[in-house]
């Protein structure tokens, strides 16, 4: 599924500002050890395309854990044995499993010296990967895909202004709790009312989808005009329950992940495209490989511009069409 076209190569080559030409720092291509979470995604496409467009010859060692965390220590061993020039990882779980926290942990259990470039870690500081985003100060850097909450709300409001916002989240997920905290703060500064509900936690301490429909009905009854599908891991697995429930209540849904709108049926989402995140990660990898910079000095960044995705069929169902100007810059899903 490699889709390298003139457009891609030309445009991604432009990022480095040079014409594609082979670059060899030491004899032979660079060796990159890649660990993915659930197989090959658009992140990897973007990553590979960037390197190809910039003429960085690479020998890629691909490994996938298939959502099984227990495979990670074995990969650490393999990395030690193979001594690649760079390691690239997908997501928080994998990255923590390979590189470990910066402040604790047994140095031998993790990779501390080989450069690690990640993609899709939503909270590098909160999860203890690095002490600082501008100066990671260790062998880890990468690209974050999270869209700031405020940006999400602004996009939501430009689609349709709102006075009351509903959110359904998992109370035991630290990231979600933190985002809800952000929402509380924004509710004051942006002037809206926040209506929250939590997923049911079963006696084992795990969230379940029980009572989802009731919770959403409550949110709607409280006057919510949007349901914000925040980047909550559990929520990401139950779109097929949550979104139809919202639709039944004629409550528009705004997603924070591509999945939510592409397959989940949300009305609209503001996302970082995985492809672009992969490219951004590759640009950092390139800095390590060809410029010889240490990851400790390469800042961890998000994209500058995010993508708005609108599901027109849902819009039709809800009779809630987007402002026509949005058609200029939003991706519209049809059919």
């Amino acid at each position, binding site marked *: 599924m490699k889709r390298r076209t003139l457009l891609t190569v030309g*445009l991604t080559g432009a990022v480095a500002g040079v014409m594609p030409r082979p670059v060899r720092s030491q004899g032979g291509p660079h060796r990159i050890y890649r660990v993915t979470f659930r197989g090959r995604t658009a992140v990897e496409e973007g990553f590979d395309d960037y390197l190809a467009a910039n003429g960085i010859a690479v020998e890629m060692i691909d490994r996938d854990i298939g959502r099984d965390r227990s495979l990670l220590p074995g990969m650490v061993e393999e990395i030690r044995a193979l001594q690649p020039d760079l390691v690239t990882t997908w997501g928080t779980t994998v990255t923590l499993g390979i590189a470990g926290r910066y402040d604790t942990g047994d140095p031998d259990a993790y990779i501390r010296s080989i450069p690690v470039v990640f993609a899709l870690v939503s909270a590098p500081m909160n999860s203890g990967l690095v002490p600082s985003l501008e100066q990671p100060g260790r062998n880890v850097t990468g690209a974050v895909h999270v869209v700031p909450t405020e940006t999400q709300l602004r996009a939501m409001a430009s689609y349709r202004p709102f006075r009351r916002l509903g959110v359904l989240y998992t109370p035991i997920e630290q990231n979600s709790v933190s985002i809800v905290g952000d929402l509380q703060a924004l509710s004051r500064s942006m002037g809206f009312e926040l209506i929250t509900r939590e997923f049911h936690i079963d006696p084992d301490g795990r969230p379940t989808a029980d009572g989802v429909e009731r919770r959403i009905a409550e949110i709607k009854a409280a006057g919510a005009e949007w349901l914000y599908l925040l980047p909550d891991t559990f929520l990401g697995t139950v779109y097929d329950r949550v979104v139809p429930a919202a639709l039944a209540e004629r409550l528009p849904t705004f997603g924070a992940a591509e999945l939510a709108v592409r397959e989940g049926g949300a009305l609209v989402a503001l996302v970082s*495209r995985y492809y672009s995140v992969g490219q951004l990660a590759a640009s950092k990898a390139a800095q390590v490989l060809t410029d010889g910079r240490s990851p400790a000095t390469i800042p961890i960044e998000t994209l500058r511009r995010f993508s708005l995705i609108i599901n027109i069929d849902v819009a039709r169902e809800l009779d809630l069409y987007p402002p026509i100007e949005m058609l200029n810059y939003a991706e519209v899903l049809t059919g």
Partner: protein
Amino acid sequence: MLRLSLRILPLFAIIVGLAMALGAYMNFSGVRGAHLDLIESRMQLVADDVGTVVEMAVSVGIAAPEQVTLPGLLARQAAADRLIESIDLVGPSGIVLFSSDPARVAGAEAADRHAIAVVDRAIVNDFGVTVARVHVRYDTRRPGQAISGFGQSVLTDAVPISLGALVAGSLAALSILSLLHRRAMRATQPHPGDPLTEAGTEIDAAAGGGGGGR
């Protein structure tokens, strides 16, 4: 008088001529500016519209549909406006990635001959880097010709008017000078109302008469 006129009139004529030339030039220049601005803004509109589409494509990555329609879009836009030579999507190294004119693709963007003007719109990717530029190349010969035609009309009007101004001005100057000259010539001779003659008469009277008042 003739010599004097020959000295003064050319200078006067030059002044009037220069003033008329300045006025005519400013007339022409003002209209030309408005005309070219209109054309450029129209081209920029096309560039911006194309740019929006391309930026969407870049942001989406490389979804197949967009690729297919881009050359078509460029061709359609270029065909819709007769002044447009081509609409190109150019990489930063100067290679033409897409174009409404298939012959230009994958070639380096060479410097154009003078008659082509270019309007530019940058395509920025998701992490803020300019990855390409939309160039709308348009023919400035046609507007140039129209403007020359306009210039010709201005000139055609300006020449007779200027000549008229020159003549009128010179005649005015000449007549003013002649007037002065005539008055001055009168003063060199005794004439009715001439104070010199009056004074002379009075002196004679005073001197000629004997003593005392009579």
